[in-house]
């Protein structure tokens, strides 16, 4: 990890977007940061947590149990007059939304910034939810960095803006900014921070010393709207809104975020710099009205480039309608007329393809013969790489067992899922075991409902899975719900000892915290027992015990919990260590004549266990095999053998 905190003022460094955000927060003098891990936002809290280990920095950083709690924790610092930040991926913003509505209504004291990371194109998500609409819904200002330097500068300014308007400021980043890297020139990091003190003895409505709350609603709501108007006025002259192009362009391209870089590239590649002007908006909500009017008046044709939904497009159209008397009637191009898609991420090619016909220029074509040949070669020569669990992953073993037990039970049982590496169990990698896949904790909530459908004749075993971090994040309330309402279901907790998918961030079940301090770890089986569930704990690498326990539980009425506990193969304590030396005894493996139909390689499909086309036998790939030993239990002839490593 680079030491973003030590780079001197004015030095230039290649920073990841998320690192630039961290540097911006440091330059603003951030004192507290809280978040929940989620791609593409995780590196922000991770970097801050690493920096907080230096006690001279006076920075408190935590991985909170979920995003709503993170927002609550971070706001406490603001109430005590400190500079504070909450960080999450967009689906987490949905989790935090309840508190966000209250917080934006109550206002803040110390500067507070909420960074929310969208994933257009769902590069590492199961949806492409949008942060921008929340700014409008919650009536808070929204900033959107367009490049790496802005990611730093804008986050720093977001704290200043929050300090001026005394309300939370939302910053939206996207995967292609957060995870991309670019050159950033450093600014200064202040030495001293504010002292924490919560003033609460003043007149009840005093914004500095009264009660922090959203009532009386009409008064506070009007205050909130006044703050928003104040932000809009500051946005009129913001250096984050830039224009490049002729004074009177034939077409005005309005864009924001990383799309501004794609747009500039598309205009350049089509040679349209003298005909198309690019208005890059950094202060997306509320839009600066006078600035927009000036640019809208400069031309009759407007083209919107943004990800994912037409947010800018709709807001600018409303403004244009209000201003029609002054600026005249405009022709609009964008997502509403179908020139750009309302799904997925943008890139220079999509923008060029939309822009070329509007401007009546020829779209530069690839060498067609080359492209056709390259396509044909790749079609035959690049075998598809399906996502799969890592060698030695306990999830592969867990889902093999779940699938085996449900098949043996033979009553059409099914598993409801949620978010984690184990979401891949909708794929053959997890034997297509998951049959519903939604939000964090949702598998258990859905299963809680399914477990009541016996009234209507449902007689299938109902199961759900969640990870250990997800258990604390949002699977506990639905488990309580299932127990209280006497649902019939079995929750399988896939406990791999950390928030593995996003990089082993600690959670409440782990004995240390984000800053590396000893933490109180909460025992999942004890929690479930205290709630009133029937609880078992097994090692997923023990196929027989896990399978038999599952068969027993799914035949039982009420709410059952099976904790399958085994650390992730990539976990720091396990990585590059082997518990077993594995081998396939060629004399015992009967290959295709066995009758198992190559269960080990065709179905189980661990990258460490290979089908050797020459010998027509299974074979262990020594370099890839993680030595978990599980595959020894699946071979009907016991040809796969394991020996404990001394």
């Amino acid at each position, binding site marked *: 990890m680079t030491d973003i905190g030590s780079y001197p003022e004015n030095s*230039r*460094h*290649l920073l990841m977007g998320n690192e630039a955000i961290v540097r911006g927060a440091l330059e603003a003098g951030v004192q507290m940061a809280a978040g929940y891990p989620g*791609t*593409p936002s995780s590196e922000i809290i991770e970097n801050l947590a690493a920096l907080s280990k230096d006690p001279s920095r006076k920075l408190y950083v935590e991985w909170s149990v979920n995003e709503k709690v993170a927002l609550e924790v971070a706001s406490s610092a603001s109430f005590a007059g400190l500079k504070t930040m909450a960080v999450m991926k967009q689906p987490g913003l949905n989790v935090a939304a309840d508190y966000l509505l209250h917080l934006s209504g109550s206002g803040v004291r110390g500067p507070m910034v909420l960074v929310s990371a969208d994933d257009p194109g769902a*590069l*590492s998500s199961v949806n492409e939810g949008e942060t921008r609409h929340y700014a409008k819904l919650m009536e808070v200002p929204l900033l959107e960095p367009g*490049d*790496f330097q802005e990611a730093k500068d804008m986050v720093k300014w977001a704290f200043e803006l929050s300090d001026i308007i005394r309300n939370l400021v939302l910053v939206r980043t996207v*995967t*292609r*900014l957060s*995870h*991309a*890297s*670019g*050159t950033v020139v450093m600014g200064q990091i202040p030495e001293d921070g504010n002292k924490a003190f919560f003033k609460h003895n003043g007149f009840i409505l005093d914004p500095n010393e009264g009660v922090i709350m959203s009532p009386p609603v009409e008064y506070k709501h009007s205050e909130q709207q006044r703050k928003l108007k104040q932000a809009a006025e500051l946005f009129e002259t913001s250096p984050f809104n830039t224009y490049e192009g002729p004074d009177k362009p034939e077409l005005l391209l309005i864009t924001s975020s*990383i799309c501004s*870089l*794609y747009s500039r*590239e598309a205009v350049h590649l089509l040679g349209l710099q003298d005909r198309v002007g690019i208005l890059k908006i950094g202060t997306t909500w509320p839009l600066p009205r006078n600035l927009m009017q000036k640019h809208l008046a400069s031309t009759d044709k407007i083209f919107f480039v943004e990800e994912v939904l037409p947010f800018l497009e709709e807001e600018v159209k409303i403004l244009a309608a209000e201003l029609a008397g002054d600026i005249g009637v405009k022709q609009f191009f964008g997502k509403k007329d179908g020139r750009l898609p309302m799904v997925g991420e943008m*890139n*220079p*090619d999509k923008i*060029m393809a939309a822009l070329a016909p509007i401007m009546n220029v020829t779209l530069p074509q*690839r*060498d067609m013969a*080359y*492209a056709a*040949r*390259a*396509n044909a*070669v*790749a079609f*035959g*020569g*690049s*075998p*598809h*790489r*399906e*996502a*799969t*669990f*890592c060698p030695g992953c306990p999830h592969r073993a867990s889902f093999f067992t779940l699938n085996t037990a449900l098949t043996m039970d033979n009553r059409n049982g099914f598993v409801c899922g949620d978010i984690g*590496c184990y*979401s*891949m169990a909708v794929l053959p*990698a997890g034997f297509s075991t998951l049959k519903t896949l939604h939000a964090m904790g949702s598998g258990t909530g859905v299963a809680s409902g399914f477990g009541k459908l016996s009234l209507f004749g449902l007689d299938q075993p109902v199961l759900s899975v969640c990870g250990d971090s997800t258990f604390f994040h949002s699977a506990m309330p639905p488990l309580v719900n299932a127990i209280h309402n006497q649902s019939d279901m079995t929750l399988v907790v896939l406990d791999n000892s950390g928030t593995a998918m996003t990089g082993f961030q600690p959670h409440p079940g782990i004995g240390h915290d984000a800053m590396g301090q000893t933490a109180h770890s909460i025992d999942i089986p004890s929690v479930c027992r205290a709630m009133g569930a029937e609880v078992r704990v097994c090692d997923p690498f023990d196929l027989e015990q896990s399978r038999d326990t599952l068969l027993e539980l799914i035949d039982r009425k009420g709410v059952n919990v099976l904790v399958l506990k085994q650390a992730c193969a990539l976990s720091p304590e396990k990585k590059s260590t082997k518990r077993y030396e594995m081998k396939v005894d060629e004399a015992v493996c009967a290959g295709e004549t066995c009758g198992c139909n*190559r269960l080990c*390689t*065709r*179905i189980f*499909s661990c*990258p460490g*266990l*290979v*089908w050797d086309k020459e010998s027509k036998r299974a074979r262990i*790939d020594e*370099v890839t095999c993680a030595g978990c030993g599980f595959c020894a239990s699946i071979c009907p002839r016991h040809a796969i053998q394991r020996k404990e490593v001394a």
Partner: protein
Amino acid sequence: MTHMTLKADPFNLIVTGVGGQGNVMTSRAVGNMLSQLGLHVTIGETFGASQRGGSVMSHLRISAKSSWSPQIPLGQAHMIVSMEPTETLRVLKDYGHPGVTVITNTRPFYPVGVISGQLNYPKDEEIRAWISELSARAFFLNATEKAVEIGNPVLGNVIMAGALAGTGELPLSREIFQAIMATRFKDDKLRMNMEAFDWGVKSVKTE
């Protein structure tokens, strides 16, 4: 800012491979070297669950003039550095053109479909012929084998960075690489990194 001129501006470099092979490390090391020369560098990459055992790609945009977007337009890569031979073909499909230079590691990393016997993996000679046909210049290195010989398979990435420097297409030098590595590694590890880098440089020069 720099007065350097590049062979193309922006120079578009793709570093590709399979998740876990160390792509991010290579692209960052190369990007840092170029950035320290005063060039504008943008690296586009993604990581997360979708990359477990999947194809990964980093887009590097290098310019003496300004910052470019994190996604290279189709058919516009000047150079492809690949840790896995069939990934080279996948990248050529979208970003290749007749003038592209390719440096590829020859060691296969089999997809799960090949491991399970459902899909076929092409022969080494076939892959070499296709890559040569679809590029202006192609270099084939057994970087993994050499890296294991030096002491760690992850050094394959350093070999590839050395090979990239060896082509002379970008202003990458041994001195800058050593200076950057010396901030991270000492003694034996530094020596191994330099041995890997030098082998990479040599292997494209002698071809």
